């Protein structure tokens, strides 16, 4: 175990996985010479050489499209998208090919592509450096999606993604890249996809979240201590989803607040709420509430804090439920 920042844990995972399996390679913009604009890929070029850590041309669809072909040639590509919103040019390749190619070959080929990117707001950056695009990814058949909220999970989920035979998108909450610090197992460390994590036990209300909203929910639970006992469920893996954990916690508390940074309409919170409306209807003691970003472009950073779910907005929802 070593104490690490979240972004250091990402870097650690890459070092371990590239050392473990020589078919793993990293490609993306500025991942080599510069070691990534967040230094997530630092040291890979020196250690593994320019064939396994590649500075590509500035072309996101080219990167992901090339990754499809690299798989056919026996590689396990790990693609970095430099920022959330700069992944949109690769959506066509993702939806059209990455999620369908195995199916198209009658299950005879594997496309073990990992796409990883920093995502989310709160970093005081110019526009389009702040998006939470998980809906686009998780709605796409053939794709798996995971989002860590701790350094240990950042390492373990990325390792799981790289080893997974299916394409996996990992969204890394950049606002906590250097604020979340924690013990990370040394060497190989895999957190299986499809398992949620109870980040805090509670009995009155379940707060369901992922990514940077997990520490936000933990802060809210802390603030509400005495008033309401909040359980915090860290989804971790959006597909495969740990429905059991969701239903178990909802069954226990009967009250659910779902928190997401992304715009409200068909955010992933809608899926979680829909599952509860279908499978937990008799357990619910009140409405399923969502605390989300708004259906507007992510704002300029002087007002971004008003956009982001906050302790205040989450508490408000908890109180509504308690009083229901």
């Amino acid at each position, binding site marked *: 175990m070593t104490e690490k920042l979240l972004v250091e844990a990402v870097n650690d995972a890459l070092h371990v996985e590239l050392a473990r399996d020589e078919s793993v*390679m990293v490609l993306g913009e500025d991942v080599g010479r510069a070691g990534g604009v967040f230094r997530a890929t630092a040291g890979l070029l020196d250690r593994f050489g320019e*064939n396994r850590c590649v500075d*590509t*041309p500035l*072309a996101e*669809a*080219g990167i*992901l*499209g*090339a*990754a*499809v*072909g*690299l*798989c*056919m*040639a*026996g*590689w396990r590509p790990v693609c970095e998208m430099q920022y959330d919103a700069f992944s949109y*040019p690769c959506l*066509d*390749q993702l939806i*059209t*090919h990455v*999620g*369908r*190619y*195995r*199916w*198209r*070959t*009658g*299950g*005879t*080929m*594997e496309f073990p592509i990992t796409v990883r990117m920093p995502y989310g707001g709160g970093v005081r950056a110019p526009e389009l450096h702040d998006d939470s695009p998980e809906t686009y990814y998780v709605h796409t*058949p*053939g794709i*798996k999606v995971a989002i860590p909220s701790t350094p240990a999970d950042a390492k373990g989920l990325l390792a799981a993604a790289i080893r*997974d*035979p*299916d394409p996996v998108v990992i969204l890394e909450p950049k606002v906590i890249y250097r604020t979340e610090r924690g013990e990370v197992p040394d060497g190989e460390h895999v957190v299986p996809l*499809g398992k949620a994590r109870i980040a805090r036990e509670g009995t009155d209300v379940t707060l369901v979240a992922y990514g940077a909203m997990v520490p936000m929910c933990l802060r809210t639970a802390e603030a509400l201590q005495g008033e309401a006992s909040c359980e915090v469920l860290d989804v971790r893996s959006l*597909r*495969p*989803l740990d*429905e059991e954990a969701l239903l178990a916690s909802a069954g226990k508390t009967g009250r659910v607040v779902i928190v997401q940074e992304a715009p409200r309409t068909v955010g992933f919170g809608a899926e979680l709420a829909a599952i509860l409306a279908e499978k937990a209807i008799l357990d619910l003691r009140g409405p399923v509430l969502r605390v989300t970003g708004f259906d507007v472009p992510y704002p300029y950073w002087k007002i971004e804090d008003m956009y982001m779910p906050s302790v205040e907005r989450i508490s408000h929802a908890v109180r509504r439920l308690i009083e229901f």
Partner: protein
Amino acid sequence: MAQVAHGEPELRRVIDEDRELDGVGEQELLDLYRSMVLLRTYDERSLVYHRQGRIGTYAIFWNHEAMQAGSVHALAREDWIFPSYRESAIGLLRGMPPATVLHWWRGHPAGWWNPSEYNVASICVPIATHVPHAAGLAWGKKLKGEAACAIVYFGDGATSEGAFHEGANFAAVMQAPLILFCNNNQWAISTPLSAQTRAETLADKAVGYGMPGTRVDGGDVLAVYEATREAVERARAGEGPSFIEAVTYRAAPHATADDPRAYIDLERVEQEKKNECLGRYERYLRRLGVLGDELEAEIKSEAADAMRAGITAAEAEPDPDPELLFENAYVIPPPNLREGWID
């Protein structure tokens, strides 16, 4: 924009010039002929098959056979082929059963094939998005120290897509052993080349990627063969990708659902039909004394037999198991994949 005409001098030609190619003997000439006949037979029968309502929409490739056969014959078996829908039957040249391709057009999952079995990637339906795949494969093979190269087929329209651009540039930067083969049939459905680009020629695009570009008469199977062979040699020598523009003219509808009379030049189509690539090659082989009536009949009936057998096999295939819906999307499927399924 320069509307490209067959008469332009800068197109590479072999047949019309009655040239003979180094290292291409009678055997190779006839192999090429067999391939063209096989493709032609597949295409013509498929059209009939479609008219009988037994396959769905079908993208006709009549008069594109010289481009497909000529280029594939310049490859080695380990080289990879990335077809678009226009090259749907190109796998036949790698031993794929006609029934497989028919199934693809019948919307039957038996039309799924394993690309590694033939080194033929799945048919790419969207325009140009397979160019980066081919670049990635070729680059990946090179990184592994393997000798294989790749060829990717796309149309004139495809050159307008961002995916073409990104794939071509990737291949160039990585010096990937790739042949970018552009079937310039001068139409993208109803859109003529003049509304697609202002470039003098599509081969001009190669300049911007720092790779050689060459133009060839797409109706001349030997010219195509020769140009591709040179590109393959470059690729194998580690000299990176090449761009080949094969110029032809779409003499058939875009696909069975299309009625080109609204937009095409019908006279030009008639002219093209008279000069179609299979007949041109037959006349050349006859001039060389390599082909006679008997041999031609034999080769054509072989192809017809293969196709008949393919159709019989396709018809005999039972309807697919609906369970296939869930079979192949994931290696390790999420647990809720069948949510809502009624057993």
